[in-house]
């Protein structure tokens, strides 16, 4: 074979590879993708404003028997991260472990919801979700599992209403706002003033998304994302389907109530650090973390760019009996990635 033939051979191989990628992309884009719904059958047991309280059902369409567990995801993202796919559902795993699982789906805020503050969530939506959960499960206490910002709200709720919580699980929940990294810290360093409490706006989803992207270098440029996708098209089809499902969650951020963000920043952001300083309040009521005497599990992720692990593990200094574990993986990966079953099992064992 001559040098020229070898060159042509290489070009042909390159062409075939590129075409195969485009064929794979076409196949992926024409197959049914994840359309933002949970994987496990459920029934809606309570609604209020945009909130839907979901109760998972078994194969016969009946609620699972066992102690109640309430999942509180972050209100600035879609709830289905805890119920992603059949066989890859955190909530489904907990239900299969013998618990009656409820999930708070906060929905998508609209213009008037920009006035929602911490108290609206903690004293309102979460407290009533707990009440409904207890009434339906006929239990005296509920196990609460909070994820990310949902963990912050769960922590505040538990401190104010400890008698209703049996066990508390906080997943990638920042408590030390002074630790380097995370959205509030970066915003502080950039000198951003944050949102207005008095005249809040509904922060557009694209802006919320840009904050997350700010923490993941490369993901905030279109060229970088396209390159990532092009490289990923060499992956086997099942991995591509997983990537599409995850993309449907990561890229489908919801708008955020400006007043909630303003209050979070003012209370827990760098310099204020209200949870560590013991100055946290909800609706003017002081939050006493000493009221949290029930078992508490806090889980951080080694490679978490959104909630830095040190800021999460700091819970040990304000709730000394907290069981703190750090898992390998990122903010989303430990909950819904390929290694997520490690977390699910740890949580199921803790709740048992």
């Amino acid at each position, binding site marked *: 074979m001559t040098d020229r033939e070898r060159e*042509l*051979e290489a070009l*042909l191989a390159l*062409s*075939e590879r590129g*075409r195969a990628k*485009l*064929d794979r*992309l*076409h196949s*992926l*884009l*024409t197959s049914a*993708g*994840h*359309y*933002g719904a949970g994987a496990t059958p459920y029934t809606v047991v*309570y609604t*209020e*404003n945009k909130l839907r309280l979901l109760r998972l059902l078994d194969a016969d369409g009946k609620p699972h028997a066992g102690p109640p567990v309430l999942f509180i995801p972050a209100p600035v993202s879609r709830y289905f991260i805890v119920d992603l796919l059949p066989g890859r559902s955190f909530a489904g795993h907990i239900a299969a472990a013998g618990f009656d699982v409820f999930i708070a789906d906060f929905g998508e805020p609209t*213009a*008037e*919801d*920009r*006035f*929602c503050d911490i108290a*609206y969530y903690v004293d*309102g*939506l979460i407290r*009533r979700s707990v*009440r*409904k959960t207890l*009434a339906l499960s006929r239990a005296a206490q509920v196990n609460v599992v909070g994820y990310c910002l949902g963990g912050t709200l769960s922590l505040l709720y538990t401190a104010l209403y400890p008698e209703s919580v049996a066990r508390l699980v906080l997943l990638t929940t920042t408590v030390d706002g002074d630790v380097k990294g995370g959205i509030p810290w970066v915003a502080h360093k950039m000198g951003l003033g944050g949102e207005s409490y008095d*005249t*809040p*706006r*509904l*922060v*557009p*989803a*694209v*802006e919320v*998304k840009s904050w997350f992207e700010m923490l993941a270098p490369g993901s905030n440029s*279109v060229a*970088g*994302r*396209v*390159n*990532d*996708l092009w490289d990923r098209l060499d992956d086997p089809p099942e991995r*591509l389907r997983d*990537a*599409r499902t995850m*993309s*449907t969650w990561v*890229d*489908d*951020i919801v*708008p955020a109530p*400006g007043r909630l963000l303003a209050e979070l920043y003012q209370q827990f952001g760098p310099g204020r650090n209200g949870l560590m300083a013991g100055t946290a309040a909800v609706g003017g009521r002081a939050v006493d973390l000493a009221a949290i005497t029930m078992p508490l599990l806090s889980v951080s992720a080694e490679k978490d760019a959104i909630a830095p692990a040190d800021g999460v593990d700091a819970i040990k200094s304000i709730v000394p009996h907290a069981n703190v574990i750090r898992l390998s993986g990122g903010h989303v990966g430990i909950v819904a990635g390929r290694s997520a079953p490690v977390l699910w099992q740890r949580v199921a064992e803790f709740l048992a």
Partner: protein
Amino acid sequence: MAEDKTNNEPTLVERWLRDQQQWQRTILSYLDSMVKDEDFLVHLGNAMRGSLLAGKPYPTASTAMSDQEPPADDRLDRVLFALHQLQGQLNDLAMTLDEIRDAVGGARKIASAAPGNQKPPQRRPPSKSAATKPGTRRAKRRA
């Protein structure tokens, strides 16, 4: 035999021609999906932004321009939000009533199930029929 096998292998030119045909098929499959499936256009647009988001367009700054600033007159939104808060308070009341009803119902069940409290069923006074019977005091008052 080995020579025949070698001769049957496509030449570089033949392979190049076949690759060109495959490219045409790939392009046609994209065009076909674009024409037949509106969702495909959305998904393709998302992919061109590096996202595999399904079911809706990738959020862009242009779609959110109208949400950037709070509206000058926010009274309607404040009223709507106050209504949401009221709805929550009403739900709280309803839950409390449910709890009371359940507690009363449970207490009644316990009381009736307790030994010694199981009285023989009594015949209820014929109050309803008496109330409607002409000549009774209630019927007279109604009249």
